[in-house]
C-alpha cells in the first residue's frame, strides 16, 4: 500500500459526509497532514471529528453538492446538461433503451394478467376443469348424465358446473344482434368464485327444463344494449324469439376465461330425460371447485373411482375410464401460454442487448473523455466523484429511455391488442398498470446502473496515465470489456435470430400445407336467422334456397353452396360414425369425423376432389330421395381399410336415425387447423339430416378477386331476410390466414425483435471496431510505412471483427441448441435443432459483421503513414 495514501474508507466518508463549505479545504488538509502523521487511527479520528463539526447538509440549488440525496440530484442535473451537449448520442441511447423497455413492457402487460397473475376469482387455485379421457388418452367433453353422476357422488368437490357454448340472437328495438354466450349450470359462478354485481345469481330451481329461460348479462352488454338501466334486472328480453328473464349483471371487470367473448350466460336447464343429456352426448365442459382441505390427488383419485364405476355400469357409453383435472388458468391459457412465454423470453433478451449496447456507447464516450477523467483524477477528483458522475449519466440516459419506453409500450400495446385473437382470455384486463410501471422503473434503474457501471469499470481499472501523456492507446481491460460487450450482443442476437428463424420455418411449413380445398378466388359469409318463423325445418330449407339464389345472382359468382361448418372456420361439429358391415361392441370407439350438412354444390365450390364414386346431385336433396353420404379418404380407410367404401352403409347418432349409403369418397381437408393434421369428414345433404341449421356458412367461388365482391355478397345474403345476422364476411384466403393468426403474430414479433437485435449487435461491433481503429491509427501508419499492404491491414481489422463475431455466434448457437426446446410447442414441421436455421443464422450474422467491419477497415487502410508518424 502506498504509505502516503490515507485509509480509503475514511477518505470516502470524509468526501461524502463533510459539509461542502469546508470539505475541500478540510479534506485537503487531512490528506496533506497524513503524509507527516502516517497514522490511520489519527486520520480516522480527525475525519470523525470533522464530520461531527461540519456535517453535510442538503442545500438546494448549489451545484457543489454531492454525497447526499440532494447532492446527487444536483449531479443528475449536471449529467443531464452534459448529455444535452451531446444530443445525438443521448437520443441514440434513449431510443435504443426505449425500444427495449417499451417492447418488454408491452409484452409483459399482455402476459401479466393472462399467464402470470392469478385469476381474480375467489381462491382461483381450487378451480379445475374436468375432462373425460378418450381411447387415446386425449381429453374429451362430458355428457350430461356423466356430469350429474359425478357431481352427485363426489365428496371432494365444493361445487361443480357444466358449460357449453351458446350463440343466441338478441332481438331488441327492431334489430337483431348475434351474441356470444354460454349455457351453464346454476352453480357456475359460485364454482368459478364470482358473484353478479347487480341482481342475483342463478338459483337451483332456474336450472330445470320448464324454467330455463333465465340469463345473466355481461356488464358491457347491459350498459350498451340495455343502456345500463337497472330496471332491466328482473325484466324479460327477446332472445332467439323466446322471452327470457334477466336475473343479474356481472361485474365490469369480470371476464369469463372459459368463454373469453361471452356477453350472456343462460342456465343449462337440462335433465336426464333429454335426448342430448346422454352419456355419449359429449358437448359439455365441466368445471369444479375443490372443497376446502381437499387435495388435487385425493379429488383425482375419487373421480377416477367414480369413473371406473360408471364405465362398469355403462360399458357401451365410454371409450375409456378416468378424468383429467387441469387448473382453470392453465386450461384457459393453454393455447397462448407457449407463445407468450417465448415472447417474454425474447423481449427480455432484446432488453439485455439494448442495455448492453447503450453501455457500449457510454464506454466509447468514456474512452473519448479519458483525458477529462485523467485530469480530474490527477487533480484529486476522488473515484467517488467519477462514480457519481458516470452513474448519474447512466441514470439520466436510462430515465430518458424509460420515458421513451413508456411511449413505445403505450403504442405497442395498442397495436398488439388490435392483432391478438379475441379468443385469448383476460384481454380485457390488459393495460399499462402499476405493475407495468414498476417493471419500467426497476428495469430503468437496473439499466441505468449497468450503463453507468460499464464505463466505470474501465475508468477505475484502466490506467489513466497514458491518457495524460497524450497517448490514445486503449488500456487492456477496456479492450477486453468492449470485446465482451460485442460478444454478448452477438450471442443474444443469434439466439433471437434462431428463434425467429425457427418460427419462420414453421410458418412457411404451415402455409405450404395443402388445406384440402382451394382458398383462392373464393369468399364466405357466416349467417344466422332466428325466431318463431324458423321453428319449422322446411322454412329453414326455403331460406337456404333463397339465400343461394340471391348469392348466385351476384356478378362474378360462378358457384355457391351452403354448409353447416367451414374448414378452418373454427367450428367443431363431429359425430361418431358406425358402419353396418363393421359393428363395434362399444359404439364410443367409432371414428368421429367432422360432420358437414351441405347443399349439392359444396365440394365443387370448395374444389375438394372426389376420389371415388360421385358428388352429390340435385336429386339427393329431393323430398323422397334415399339418404346418401360422402366420406373423406381417411375416414373410408379407417373404417374399411382397403375395401371400397362405395355402397357401404353408415349410421350417426341415435339408433332410430336413418342409415346413409356412401356414394363417394372425397379428399381430406384440414378442418381444425393447418398445423393439427388432417381430420376425417363425412358430408350429407342438408335435406337428409334430422334437423336443419339456421346458422350456416355460405361459400362462393368467384371469377375474379373475391375481396371485391364482399359488399355485394353481404347485400345478397340479407335479401331473403333483413334480420339475418352476419357473423363473418371474408375471403377463404382470409379465413385460412386467420386460422394461423396467432402463429403469424408470434413470428412477426420475434422477427422484429431479432431484426432490432441484429442491428444493435452490428452497431455495437461497428462501434468497437471503429474505436479500436481510431486508437491504432499510428500503429497502422507504422505498419504501412514498414511495407504492410492495404490487404494486410484490412485483414487485421476484419479479423478482429470476425473473431469477436465468431465467439459470440458460437456462444449463441450453443445457447440455441440448449434452449430451443422452450419453443417446441410453437414449431411445426421443423425440429428444434434445424440445421437450415442454424446455418442461415450464422450466415446472416457473419454478413452483418462483415458489413459492420467494412467502414472501420477502410478507415484503417486510408491512414497516411507520414501524418501519423509525424504526430509521434
Amino acid at each position, binding site marked *: 500500500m502506498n504509505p*502516503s495514501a490515507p485509509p480509503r474508507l475514511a477518505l470516502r466518508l470524509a468526501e461524502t459526509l463533510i459539509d461542502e*463549505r*469546508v470539505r*475541500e*479545504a*478540510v*479534506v*485537503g*488538509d*487531512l*490528506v*496533506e*497532514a497524513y*503524509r507527516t502523521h502516517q497514522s490511520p487511527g489519527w486520520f480516522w*479520528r*480527525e475525519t470523525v*471529528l*470533522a464530520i*461531527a*463539526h*461540519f456535517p453535510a447538509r442538503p442545500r438546494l440549488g448549489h451545484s457543489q453538492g454531492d454525497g447526499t440525496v440532494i447532492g446527487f440530484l444536483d449531479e443528475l442535473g449536471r449529467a443531464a446538461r452534459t448529455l444535452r451537449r451531446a444530443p445525438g448520442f443521448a437520443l441514440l441511447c434513449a431510443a435504443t433503451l426505449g425500444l427495449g423497455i417499451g417492447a418488454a413492457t408491452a409484452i409483459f402487460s399482455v402476459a401479466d394478467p393472462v399467464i402470470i397473475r392469478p385469476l381474480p376469482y375467489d381462491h382461483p387455485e381450487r378451480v379445475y376443469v374436468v375432462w373425460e379421457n378418450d381411447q387415446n388418452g386425449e381429453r374429451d367433453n362430458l355428457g350430461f348424465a356423466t356430469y350429474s353422476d359425478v357431481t352427485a357422488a363426489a365428496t371432494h368437490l365444493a361445487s361443480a358446473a357444466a358449460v357449453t357454448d351458446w350463440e343466441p340472437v338478441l332481438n331488441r328495438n327492431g334489430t337483431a344482434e348475434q351474441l356470444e354466450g354460454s349455457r351453464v349450470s346454476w352453480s357456475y359462478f359460485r364454482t368459478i368464485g364470482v358473484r353478479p354485481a347487480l341482481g342475483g345469481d342463478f338459483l337451483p330451481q332456474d336450472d330445470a327444463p320448464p324454467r330455463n329461460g333465465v340469463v345473466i348479462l355481461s356488464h358491457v352488454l347491459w350498459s350498451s344494449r340495455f343502456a345500463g338501466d337497472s330496471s332491466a334486472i328482473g325484466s324479460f328480453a327477446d332472445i332467439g324469439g323466446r322471452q327470457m328473464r334477466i336475473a343479474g349483471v356481472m361485474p365490469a371487470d369480470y371476464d369469463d376465461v372459459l368463454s373469453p367473448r361471452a356477453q350472456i350466460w343462460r342456465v343449462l336447464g337440462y335433465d336426464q330425460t333429454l335426448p342430448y343429456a346422454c352419456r355419449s352426448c359429449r358437448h359439455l365442459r365441466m368445471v369444479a371447485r375443490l372443497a376446502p382441505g381437499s387435495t388435487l390427488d385425493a379429488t383425482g383419485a375419487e373421480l377416477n373411482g367414480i369413473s371406473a364405476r360408471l364405465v362398469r355400469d355403462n360399458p357401451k357409453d365410454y371409450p375409456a375410464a378416468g378424468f383429467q383435472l387441469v387448473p382453470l388458468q392453465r386450461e384457459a391459457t393453454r393455447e397462448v401460454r407457449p407463445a407468450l412465454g417465448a415472447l417474454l423470453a425474447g423481449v427480455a433478451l432484446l432488453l439485455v442487448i439494448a442495455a448492453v449496447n447503450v453501455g457500449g456507447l457510454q464506454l466509447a464516450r468514456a474512452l473519448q473523455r479519458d483525458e477529462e477523467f485523467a485530469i480530474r483524477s*490527477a*487533480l*484529486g*477528483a*476522488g473515484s467517488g466523484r467519477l462514480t457519481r458522475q458516470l452513474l448519474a449519466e447512466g441514470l439520466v440516459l436510462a430515465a430518458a429511455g424509460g420515458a421513451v419506453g413508456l411511449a413505445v409500450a403505450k403504442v405497442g400495446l395498442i397495436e398488439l391488442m388490435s392483432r391478438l385473437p379475441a379468443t385469448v382470455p383476460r384481454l380485457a384486463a390488459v393495460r399499462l398498470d402499476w405493475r407495468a410501471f414498476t417493471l419500467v422503473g426497476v428495469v430503468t434503474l437496473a439499466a441505468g446502473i449497468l450503463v453507468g457501471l460499464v464505463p466505470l469499470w474501465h475508468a477505475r481499472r484502466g490506467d489513466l496515465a497514458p491518457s495524460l501523456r497524450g497517448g490514445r492507446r486503449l488500456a487492456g481491460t477496456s479492450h477486453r470489456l468492449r470485446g465482451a460487450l460485442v460478444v454478448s450482443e452477438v450471442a443474444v442476437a443469434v439466439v433471437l435470430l434462431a428463434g425467429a428463424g425457427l418460427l419462420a420455418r414453421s410458418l412457411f411449413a404451415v402455409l405450404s400445407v395443402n388445406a384440402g380445398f382451394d382458398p383462392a378466388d373464393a369468399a364466405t359469409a357466416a349467417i344466422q336467422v332466428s325466431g318463431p318463423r324458423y321453428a319449422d325445418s322446411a322454412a329453414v330449407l326455403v331460406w337456404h334456397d333463397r339465400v343461394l339464389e340471391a348469392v348466385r345472382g351476384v356478378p362474378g359468382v360462378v358457384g355457391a353452396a351452403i354448409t353447416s361448418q367451414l374448414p378452418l372456420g373454427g367450428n367443431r361439429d363431429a359425430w361418431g360414425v358406425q358402419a353396418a358391415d363393421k359393428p363395434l361392441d362399444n359404439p364410443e370407439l367409432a371414428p368421429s369425423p367432422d360432420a358437414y350438412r351441405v347443399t349439392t354444390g359444396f365440394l365443387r365450390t370448395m374444389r375438394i376432389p372426389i376420389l371415388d364414386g360421385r358428388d352429390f346431385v340435385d336429386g339427393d336433396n329431393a323430398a323422397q330421395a334415399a339418404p346418401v353420404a360422402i366420406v373423406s379418404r381417411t375416414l373410408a380407410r379407417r373404417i374399411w381399410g382397403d375395401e371400397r367404401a362405395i355402397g357401404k352403409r353408415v349410421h350417426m347418432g341415435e339408433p332410430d336415425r336413418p342409415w346413409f349409403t356412401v356414394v363417394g369418397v372425397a379428399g381430406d381437408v384440414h378442418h381444425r387447423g393447418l398445423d393439427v393434421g388432417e381430420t376425417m369428414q363425412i358430408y350429407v345433404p342438408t335435406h337428409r339430416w334430422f334437423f336443419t341449421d339456421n346458422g350456416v356458412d355460405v361459400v362462393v367461388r368467384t371469377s375474379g378477386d373475391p375481396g371485391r365482391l364482399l359488399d355485394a355478397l353481404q347485400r345478397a345474403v340479407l335479401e331473403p331476410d333483413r334480420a339475418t345476422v352476419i357473423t363473418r364476411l371474408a375471403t377463404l384466403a382470409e379465413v385460412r390466414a386467420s386460422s394461423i393468426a396467432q402463429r403469424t403474430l408470434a413470428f412477426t414479433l420475434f422477427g422484429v425483435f431479432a431484426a432490432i437485435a441484429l442491428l444493435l449487435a452490428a452497431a455495437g461491433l461497428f462501434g468497437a471496431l471503429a474505436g479500436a481503429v481510431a486508437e491504432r491509427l499510428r500503429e497502422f501508419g507504422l505498419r504501412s510505412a514498414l511495407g504492410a499492404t492495404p490487404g494486410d491491414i484490412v485483414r487485421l481489422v476484419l479479423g478482429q471483427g470476425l473473431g469477436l463475431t465468431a465467439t459470440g455466434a458460437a456462444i449463441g448457437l450453443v445457447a440455441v441448441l440448449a434452449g430451443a426446446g422452450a419453443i417446441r410447442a410453437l414449431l411445426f414441421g421443423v425440429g428444434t435443432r434445424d440445421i437450415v436455421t442454424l446455418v442461415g443464422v450464422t450466415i446472416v450474422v457473419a454478413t452483418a459483421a462483415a458489413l459492420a467491419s467494412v467502414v472501420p477497415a477502410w478507415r484503417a487502410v486510408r491512414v497516411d503513414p507520414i501524418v501519423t508518424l509525424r504526430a509521434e
Partner: protein
Amino acid sequence: MLGEFEQLVLMAVLRAGDDAYGIPVHAELVRHTARDPSLASVYKALERLEHKGLLSVRTGPPTPERGGRRKQLYRVTNAGQKELRAALGAIRRMARGLDVGLEPS
C-alpha cells in the same frame, strides 16, 4: 469579546503569514500552546472568526500532496487586528502587578 481559543487562532494566522491555511495555522497552535486541537476545531474557530469579519478568506491553488484539493487561505482583517489588540491589551492590563510568574512585557 474574543474567546481565548479565538485569540490563539487569530495569532496563529498572523504567524503563519502568507500561507495561512489549516495545516500551518494548526502547526503554530501546536508549537506555541502545547495543545493538539483537532483540525476540525481549528476550522470551527476560523469559520467563527470569518463570520465576525475578523478574518478574510480566499481560495488557494491545489497541490499534489493534497490530492489536487485547493487550500483556503486566511488573512487577519483590520478589524481582526483591532479586536486582537483590544483583547491582548485587556489581558496585559489585568496581568500587570499580579505575581503569576510571567515577565511583564
